[in-house]
């Protein structure tokens, strides 16, 4: 027998209260884990962005086109290893118009030099290159739309009107977490041949890979300088900087989520503090007995901290236990399938798990500090006089 084991037994005295408190705090842990995972997966695009990749777009706006020939100019810039151009397509599935996914026209022979973390089987790649209407589809999107190699797909153009026919040539997966696996790629040539004359030979952006990632700022500046005297000027930045500027648009949402997480933690302290204070109040007389037989004020304080610690550990463990299936298996799969662009990789980070358990433990101790201090300071005769 030890003081800690007595503290643990005290928790079993009011099983319902303990269970509800642990569950309440566990739900707070779940909410915390969910929000933190959302934030980390959102920033995964920045964190996992290839450091040696830069993108060039129209200086004025992302939606204005660049001439396709700029890609050839960029390929000649010293320090550039590969370059490839891209065009937004913006097609929708006529059968399910709410199913948004990125669909992009790409330069067939160079795209995999740029996005080498897209994993495609060699035979799929060969099939794609051989088929003018061929498309490469992300594994998550393919699963969602029920597509397999050889299927025919029709997309309705929004930027480029009409019904567009494609054949699924291959499925890609990702070897790094930065790539959204619900995209749809097809040959830029196919698009270019089919659009009216004024829209020909246009691209939305040009991506390049560099020999030396540390020189990305320098090379970006060099590229923009070349086009400064041309009729269309460019803005070039690293993939990381681009993702950051994209995220900056959502910074208000991110801070709001952070604030919600803090509110959740405050609620958790209140739930825990309430339970602990109730237990302490009911057991005041017992603390008086402990003090009478010679236990020190600090023993009583530690005794109460011990109870709080036990609740905190339980809440942390139970919270993580429910977070894994809910956040990672249910929400995570749903978000990756439906909002893969924003959450390409929705998994609970190890740091989040550690933080959740540590917070549950620390906050329950914090919540018990005042009741513990007051119980320790109580006069023995007052405590003994207290009727439970």
């Amino acid at each position, binding site marked *: 027998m030890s003081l800690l084991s007595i503290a643990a037994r005290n928790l079993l005295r009011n099983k319902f209260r303990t269970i509800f408190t642990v569950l309440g705090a566990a739900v707070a842990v779940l909410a915390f884990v969910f929000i933190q995972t959302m934030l980390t997966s959102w920033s995964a695009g920045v964190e996992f962005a290839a450091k040696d990749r830069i993108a060039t777009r129209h200086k004025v706006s992302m939606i204005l086109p660049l001439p396709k020939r700029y890609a050839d100019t960029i390929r000649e810039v010293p320090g550039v290893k590969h370059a490839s151009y891209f065009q937004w397509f913006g097609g929708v599935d006529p059968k399910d118009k709410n199913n948004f996914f990125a669909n992009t026209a790409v330069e067939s022979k160079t795209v995999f030099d740029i996005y080498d973390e897209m994993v495609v089987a060699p035979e799929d790649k060969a099939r794609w290159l051989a088929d003018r209407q061929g498309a490469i589809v992300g594994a998550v999107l393919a699963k969602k739309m029920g597509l397999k190699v050889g299927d025919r797909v029709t997309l309705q153009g929004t930027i480029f009107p009409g019904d567009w026919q494609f054949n699924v040539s291959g499925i890609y997966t990702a070897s790094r977490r930065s790539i959204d696996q619900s995209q749809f790629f097809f040959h830029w040539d196919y698009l270019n041949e089919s659009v009216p004359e004024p829209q020909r030979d246009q691209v939305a952006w040009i991506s390049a890979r560099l020999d030396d990632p540390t020189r990305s700022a320098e090379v970006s500046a060099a590229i923009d300088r070349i086009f400064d005297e041309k009729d269309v000027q460019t803005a070039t930045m690293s993939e990381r900087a681009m993702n950051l500027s994209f995220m900056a648009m959502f910074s208000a949402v991110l801070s709001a989520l952070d604030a919600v997480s803090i509110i959740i933690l405050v609620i958790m302290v209140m739930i825990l503090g309430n339970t602990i204070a109730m237990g302490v109040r009911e057991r005041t007389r017992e603390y008086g*007995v402990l003090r009478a*037989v010679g236990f020190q004020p600090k023993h009583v304080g530690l005794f109460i901290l011990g109870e709080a610690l036990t609740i905190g550990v339980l809440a942390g463990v139970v919270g993580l236990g429910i977070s894994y299936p809910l956040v990672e298996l249910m929400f995570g799969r749903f978000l990756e399938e439906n909002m893969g662009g924003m959450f390409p990789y929705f998994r609970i980070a190890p740091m989040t798990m550690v933080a959740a358990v540590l917070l549950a433990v620390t906050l329950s101790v914090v919540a018990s500090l005042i009741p513990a201090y007051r119980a320790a300071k109580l006069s023995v005769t007052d405590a003994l006089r207290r009727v439970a």
Partner: protein
Amino acid sequence: MGEGQREGKKPIVELDGVGKTYFRDKEPVVVLDNISLDIEEGSYEALMGPSGSGKSTLLNLIAGLDRPSRGSARVAGQELSGMSDSALATFRSRTMGFIFQAYNLMPVLTAVENVELPLLLTKLSRGERKKRAQTALRVVGLEERMNHYPRQLSGGQEQRVAIARAIVNDPRIIVADEPTGDLDRKSADEILTLLEKLNKEFNKTILMVTHDPQAAERATVIHRLDKGNLS
């Protein structure tokens, strides 16, 4: 015992002009006025008086649960009036055994664990603690109930467990505040017999507050308290 002899014939409790004033809404309430009292080691003394006369307050001062507002209280050779909370706790754990009217056992602990509780403060090994707790339970005749929880015991049995807890650290003084107040006659007599045995066989100094004249009869000395003064 040994220590008592070394102090010669000095009483184990010496109160000199002890008073206790509580403040209720800033109004002073004099609960103990001016108490001077000596108690010899090994005696068995009862404290009687009307409700509210300050019996429990006086007992608590002697036991080191509270400090006097004035005067000097020397118990077992130590002056209690200036001691810190923590020093008082140490004093209690070495010198005092407590018996309360409401038994005050920990409901989550078995009989033997309740008895062992004060020993958690000592350096004794787990096995030694358990052995001593069992011995104390044997003294009160409850060894076979050692694994029962308080709710599984009768009031008289609970009080005997409480007595075992009070003697497990071998204190020189046992204070009992209405130890038979909640018990029927038969159980009360058992408890009183037990206290007598502790006094006679183990030479414990016993100070007992009681309303029950039959209980007080067992003591060698009866003090009467009225409105904060001994009469």
